[in-house]
């Protein structure tokens, strides 16, 4: 199960010196990744970094074992404008390679689907993987879309402006009547340059960038960032803070999963669950607001702990509202499973097989719905999750029903967890001050957000400042899963499939 021995072993939320990350030559680097993935590891992160020496680009990779809680890191140096693509042998890295190609003008030779990711200029002036002019800003959505030719085939283009108030993204369907052959998704409209803005930090703005990486995953991303800072500063947040972080993370999951189930019901026109879950999502958000004053948990998680404490009366109130909300959710969601008209829409719609899921490295509820058992809370536990375990919820059909049902299972597990934690809240303080960050260090931080695996990788320089900060939102892994789910489906089922994944545009575009 473990990856090749020449990689550095890492742990979630534990810093290592940068010099301990082995610098491999290309063949070693390549076989390390291929062997690791063949042994069952997932490519958790793969990104480029440009040290200030002439034209060299470093490529870092982080592999995650399935069991045992170990991560493996390595890097390689690429000189010139091309490197041989790993995607044909290891599809998991397809989007990572496209990102590297776009950001550094490095062309992965042999990549079967080499297209821009966010339509940004290459950071290496004068080099562009597509040979575009490097003086102008690339236009978003301008690329060669995949086309199916034929008299009866037609193309449907949706977005970036949609009929509902949602984020912008462009979708192209190659259809034969109502039947979809292929869906291509082109994003990048929400790109705001967060990763580059984090370089030179941390500063006052850093935490706010983190809380808004994906607005609905405020707690998840903020926790991942705080774990990075705490690892680099060698600081340990107090036990009470760890518990409150866990409670907030699970409340975030409860709110979003409930909202998703309601939205799924709305997409098939099933009124009762749709309207009740919409309200209940608000109830869970209000519980987060009881903790910190913000419905999305802004301002709660801070490096060194949490900025707000929950006193006795507040805990009592939370427990009481949790109980009412859960009994309402139970009856509202129960209607879904009991209605044959709903089940006939959910079942067998948007199937993703376990093979495709493993090949693409899907994460979160979407992967667990295919039967993959990955859950960071279980595999790479940190904080409260090391002491209090949450069973992993899986299904095996990989369709919309499975994705909905996994959410329902997770709602129940999360509610139990929150109840248990609030009932035996540890005493003590909630916030310590992390000291200075360690110089020349490398750290990987993983959190199971409600959408799945959130990965933050940070590197510091000799001045103890962040020199590269890489954020991988779960959506980054999963968008391709949505495209695969739509193959050979009805185009009218797209909204339902889309909602069953409910991916973030801004988390992907950063």
């Amino acid at each position, binding site marked *: 199960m473990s990856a090749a021995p020449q990689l550095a072993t890492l742990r979630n939320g534990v810093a290592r010196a940068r010099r301990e990350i082995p610098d491999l030559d290309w063949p070693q680097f390549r076989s390390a990744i291929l062997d690791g993935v063949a042994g069952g590891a997932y490519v958790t992160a793969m990104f480029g970094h440009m040290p200030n020496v002439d034209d060299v680009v470093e490529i870092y990779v982080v592999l995650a074992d399935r069991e045992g809680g170990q991560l493996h890191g390595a890097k390689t140096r690429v000189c010139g404008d091309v490197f041989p693509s790993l995607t044909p042998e290891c599809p998991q890295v397809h989007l990572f390679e496209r990102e590297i190609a776009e950001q550094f003008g490095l062309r992965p030779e042999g990549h079967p689907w080499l297209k821009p990711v966010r339509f940004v200029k290459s950071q290496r002036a004068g080099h562009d993987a597509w040979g575009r002019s490097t003086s102008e800003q690339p236009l978003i959505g301008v690329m060669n879309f995949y086309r199916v030719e034929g008299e009866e085939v037609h193309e449907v283009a949706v977005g970036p402006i949609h*009929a509902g108030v949602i984020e912008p993204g462009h979708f192209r369907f190659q259809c034969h*009547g109502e039947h979809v052959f292929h869906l291509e998704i082109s994003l990048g409209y929400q790109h705001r340059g967060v990763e580059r803005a984090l370089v030179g930090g941390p500063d006052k703005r850093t935490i706010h960038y983190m809380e808004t990486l994906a607005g609905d995953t405020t707690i998840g991303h903020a926790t991942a960032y705080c774990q990075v800072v705490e690892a680099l500063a060698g600081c340990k947040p107090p036990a009470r803070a760890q518990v409150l972080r866990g409670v907030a993370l699970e409340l975030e999951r409860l709110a979003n999963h409930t909202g998703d189930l309601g939205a799924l*019901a709305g997409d098939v*026109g099933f009124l009762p669950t749709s309207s009740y879950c919409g309200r209940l999502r608000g109830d869970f958000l209000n519980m987060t607001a009881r903790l910190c004053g913000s419905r999305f948990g802004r301002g709660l998680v801070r490096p060194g702990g949490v900025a707000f404490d929950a006193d006795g009366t507040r805990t009592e109130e939370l427990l009481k509202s949790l109980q009412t909300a859960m009994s309402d959710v139970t009856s509202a969601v129960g209607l879904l499973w009991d209605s044959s*008209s709903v089940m006939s829409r959910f079942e067998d719609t948007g199937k993703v097989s376990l093979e495709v899921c493993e090949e693409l490295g899907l994460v979160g509820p979407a992967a667990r719905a295919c039967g993959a058992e990955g859950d960071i809370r279980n595999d790479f536990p940190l904080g409260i999750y090391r002491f209090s375990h949450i069973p992993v919820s899986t299904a095996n059909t990989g369709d919309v029903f499975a994705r909905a049902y996994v959410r329902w299972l997770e709602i129940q597990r999360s509610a139990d967890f929150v109840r248990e934690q609030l009932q035996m809240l540890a005493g003590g303080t909630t916030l310590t001050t992390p000291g200075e960050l360690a110089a020349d260090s490398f750290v990987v931080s993983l959190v199971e957000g409600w959408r799945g695996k959130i990965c933050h990788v940070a590197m510091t320089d000799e001045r103890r400042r962040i020199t590269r900060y890489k954020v991988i939102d779960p959506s980054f892994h999963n968008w391709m899963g949505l495209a695969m789910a739509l193959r050979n489906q*009805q185009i009218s089922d*797209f*909204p339902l499939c889309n909602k069953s994944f409910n991916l973030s545009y801004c988390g992907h575009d950063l």
Partner: protein
Amino acid sequence: MSHIIVHIVLILGLPPLLLGVIGKTKALFAGRVGPPLFQAYYDLAKLFRKGSVFSTTTTWVFRAGPIVGLVTALLAGMLVPLGNHSAPVSFSGDLILFAYLFALGRFFTASAALDTGSAFEGMGAAREVTFSCLAEPALFFGFLVLAKLSGSLSLTGMLDGPFPKGWGVAGASLVLVAASLFIVLLVENSRIPFDDPNTHLELTMIHEVMVLDHSGPSLGMILYGASVKLFVMGALLMRIVAPFESGNAWVDWGLFVAGMLALAMVIGVVESVMARFRLVFVPTFLVAACLLSAFGIVLLLR
């Protein structure tokens, strides 16, 4: 004469109220207050005050769509008897005109949608036309049962004649026809479980996607025309299901209005307790509707 005036007033004035009743019923099931009962009237008043934006790629067909849609629905309303009051216009064979007035309206709505050249609207038009092809035989089989039962070929003759004693003679046939017409009513008026009038998801829409490019008064005419269509088809169905007569012509008007409101509530309940069918299953249900009516004929001929 006064009854003709009442007929015209009801056809013109009552339809948007049905939408309000459906909305209120759904809100009740969802545990919400819901929009006001008269919201559809407010919407229409708002839309008719607005200006229109027309795409430069469209032609007169696009502008004609909503007008033809509304006018055909109103004309159809002149052919259908409301309650036990005869229709203002009635002649032998008017049921053919009735069915094809709707077909004409649909032809123009679909043409207007295709005129925009948008992929969505083409998709919506294709769906609408496919489904109506299947809804039409169901309607005609239903008419056949009624014609056979009454020996008349006009809507007024058909619906006035055999009721309420028809229920004693051919109750089974009428139940089948009523069920079939209810399915046709839901399909033709884009209600759940066949279509979702409230969805904002352009890829799943049938009727709504065809009218995405209309605005202002055109959109108002489409909404109004759709409610008139619901009203007219509802009147047809209610006459079969609830052929009550009190003896007093004015009380009968009251009974008719009450019946229509009850029908709107039933539609609201159906929409509240069911999810939409998968689009590929809709034709199956329409074929089922045809078969129901066809069995109605078989039962009569036995």
